[in-house]
């Protein structure tokens, strides 16, 4: 008889939000639960895909932020 785990447990496991004890129990159950393994594979594939999505801000946006920081620093030192 294997312990019951939910897809939400596997999500917490995949995102390293389980205790060491839960982790060991889930790893013992995984070889016997193809549905949970499928969920884990989906999460890993999704993580890989999302890591590949890279959107850079326009350099002007970064420049505006740095200038704002500089201006607010001058404001503080003058007050």
């Amino acid at each position, binding site marked *: 008889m294997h312990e019951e785990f939910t*897809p*939400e447990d596997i*999500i*917490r496991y995949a*995102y390293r*939000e389980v205790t060491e004890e839960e982790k060991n129990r889930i790893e013992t159950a995984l070889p016997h639960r193809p549905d949970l393994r499928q*969920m884990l594979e*989906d*999460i890993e594939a*999704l*993580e890989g*895909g*999302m890591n*590949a*999505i*890279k*959107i*850079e*801000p*326009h350099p002007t*946006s*970064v420049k*505006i*932020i*740095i200038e*704002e*920081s*500089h201006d*607010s*620093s001058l404001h*503080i030192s003058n007050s």
Partner: protein
Amino acid sequence: MHNHIIPDHKLVESYLEGNEIALEMLVKRYKQKVMTAISMLVYDRYLAEDIFQETFIKVIHSLRGGKYQHEGKFLPWVMRIARNLSIDHIRRNKKMPTITDSEGNDISTFIRTDDLNMEDRMVRDQTHGHLYDLISRLPEEQREVLILRHYGDLSFKEIADITGCSINTALGRMRYAILNLRKMLVTVTK
């Protein structure tokens, strides 16, 4: 796991001591993650640029105003600000009255449409375009959990706190986001 040579909290301390370069390093360290997250929350390149700027300007003022409490979590803090500003913009846009022409057509659909499509296409082509498109089709609540967990490094508990739901609801939304994406992928590849 972040493995930066100078930890975030050291850069924050250095910035508050007057080292402007420290802020520049923090912006450069996280600009891509923050911009990607905002872009995927609002799906509008121009609006995402504005929110990106607003986010870091708010970060600067909060740091200088002593409103940042170090708990080793600079990125999740920035992402919370970005998320709140994104949601504000989305809600404000939903409340905006529609301006119609003499024939009753919504004129906002004619404004910058070509430009936006081109920009969005560029974003899609430069990135992992297919998944980017599929995530845009998820319900807002599911998309939000997915983005905050992945790019913002927020725990499900933190996501639950800022979105005003229980941790089980946040986990459930994540589960359905994964299931829906799988279904969409199966449909697309058929």
